């Protein structure tokens, strides 16, 4: 029965394996020490963004956080404009700021969803638009300089880098979180909110907790993004929204709630990274950007349909 709980991982795992093999053939450098270090560096923001929206998706109500990208962008530009430019560059302060800022936003979003009772997708759509604008107001164009220690993450030549430690820390946090009763509450709430409510789960706290976790990971994602680009960029975060959702869906986490975990999201994000590696290894010339779009779209549709086929019998049983 363990296989049942992990069945949603077959699709992303298969994708990662196939793409991994293709990457190994087409771009073998990917799997060298430096190649992996670079891969880790580049993929980390997306991986963490995908991880961040996972607890919110598990918490149900079709909860997909569209604001995640601009949120990461917000933390990125504020680190550069508010902290770095004012000489606040101590790692502890920057880390604390990134995580607290992201958590604060998520709390605000959760409060809207819980108390105003509007659907998460609309709340986060409004959030997307608001933050997208706010980011451009804070920093109208890419620029600024990240704290030096953070900018140095961008070298990406050492596997044992802060980015790796952040990812490991994220996994550790998730692992510990998964062992708490709260995680169980969130799962229950996502699978059937009424059951959770009537069996005494504090669904308000559970939803806040899911968003809080999202905030922690979003903060870490923003740090990794800032490390990667070494500067502030008001628009780079925005693209992460759709990518993170894609990774989430590829990872088999259902937007219907109650199911899934970060393993799937991580695999989904890795699969997406590998797609770009494989595609970049071909010389499509002028159409390479379009090939990416095409395949990216087909992959999404395919993953959804495969998930549909593999879970269909269970749905019928219900």
């Amino acid at each position, binding site marked *: 029965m363990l296989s049942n709980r992990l069945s949603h991982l077959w699709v992303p795992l298969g994708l990662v394996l196939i793409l991994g093999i293709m990457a190994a053939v087409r771009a073998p450098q990917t799997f060298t020490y430096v190649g992996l270090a670079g891969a880790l560096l580049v993929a980390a923001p997306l991986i963490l963004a995908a991880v961040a929206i996972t607890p919110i998706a598990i918490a149900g109500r079709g909860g997909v956080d569209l604001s995640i990208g601009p949120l990461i962008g917000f933390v990125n530009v504020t680190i550069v404009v508010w902290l770095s430019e004012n000489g606040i560059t101590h790692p502890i302060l920057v880390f604390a700021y990134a995580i607290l800022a992201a958590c604060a936003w998520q709390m605000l979003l959760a409060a809207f969803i819980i108390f105003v009772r509007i659907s998460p997708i609309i709340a986060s759509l409004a959030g997307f638009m608001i933050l997208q604008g706010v980011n451009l107001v804070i920093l109208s164009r890419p620029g600024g300089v990240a704290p030096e220690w953070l900018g140095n993450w961008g070298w990406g030549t050492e596997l044992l880098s802060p980015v790796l430690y952040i990812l490991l820390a994220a996994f550790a946090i998730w692992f510990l979180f998964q062992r708490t009763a709260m995680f169980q509450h969130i799962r229950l709430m996502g699978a059937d909110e009424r059951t959770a409510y009537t069996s005494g789960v504090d669904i308000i706290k559970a939803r806040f907790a899911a968003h809080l976790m999202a905030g922690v990971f979003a903060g870490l994602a923003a740090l990794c993004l800032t490390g990667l680009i070494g500067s502030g960029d008001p628009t780079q975060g925005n693209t992460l929204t759709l990518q993170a959702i894609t990774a989430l869906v590829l990872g088999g986490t259902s937007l219907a709630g109650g199911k899934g975990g970060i393993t799937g999201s991580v695999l989904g994000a890795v699969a997406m990274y590998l797609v770009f590696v494989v595609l970049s290894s071909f010389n499509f010339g002028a159409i390479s950007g379009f090939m990416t779009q095409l395949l990216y779209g087909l992959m999404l549709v395919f993953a*959804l349909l495969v998930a549909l086929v593999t879970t269909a019998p269970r749905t019928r049983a219900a």
Partner: protein
Amino acid sequence: MDQPIDINRKEVRMPTNKTGLARVLRSDAKGLLIGAALLVALFTVASILVDGFASANNIRSILLLAAFLGLASLGQTMVATIGGLDLSIPFVIGASNILLAYLFGTSVPAPLALLIIAVMGAAIGFLNGVLSYKIQGQALILTLGVGFAVVGGAQIFTTLGSQYSGTVFSQVPAWFSNIASISGTTFGLQFPPVIAIWMLVAFTLIYWINRTKSGRAIYAIGGNRTAAARLRISEFRTWVSTYTISGLTAAITGCLLLGFSGGGFVGVGDPYLFTTVAAVVVGGTSLLGGSGGYGATIIGVLVLQVLTSFLVGMGLNYAAQQTVFGLLILPMVALYARSPHIRYQI
């Protein structure tokens, strides 16, 4: 219920203790009313604060841009009414925009080219509908995936034939440009035909939605799928046909935008990704399905367009506009799309 009901009374009416206004505020027309009030207020304020805001030229320009957004939001409204979302709209707009420009550059006669694009749009919408039918909760992602694939495919197609990628240039027929450009004239009158086309489409659609069986089926499906099935209203057919309409109107919008700009550009659809959703929501169609309508969306479109114009006039840039849009969505949704407290769902 305290008094036993006199079953012999032929007609038992509840006392009408509610005023007309209170009744309207409880009904679906609430969103329409609030939206219209907002529109009037915005327009008044903008006319006072921005010189020339109420000029014929500006109003014409607002209506022109509203016509594009209005047509792009048509499908989104339909789809939202049955509880779905179509994020492929901006991509279909972009793809049809460059493909039409491409076809204009070939020997294909212009009307046939338009027909080809319209059929293609409808086919993409149909595909969206069929593929997402079984995974309605994921329609958002699925349509996004289809959209990416479509726009990627269209760009590859147009690139292979030429050196230019993403932008396609060709001579747009003058009559076609006239339809959608600001200097266009309709039967000699100083406004572009696309505004009239939009109004005509809107009128037809609203009539169709309100007065025909297939139009009402959309609301039946949006309100209660099982109950609709009992009345032999096919969920599959309704779901797929609304997505088909959405694809079709997106393609038409893409074509008209070509008339507007005179050159194919795949990015023309980009601003419509979330703006169509915003227009639908601000108008008062709940994304949960079953309520609202295109009339509401028209109000929503006009509110957004007047607001954009106003913000531009006030010197606010795109970024600030987005923020204002976002801030506008929240109270509008809070007004009419709140879900009941969980204790009432048990």
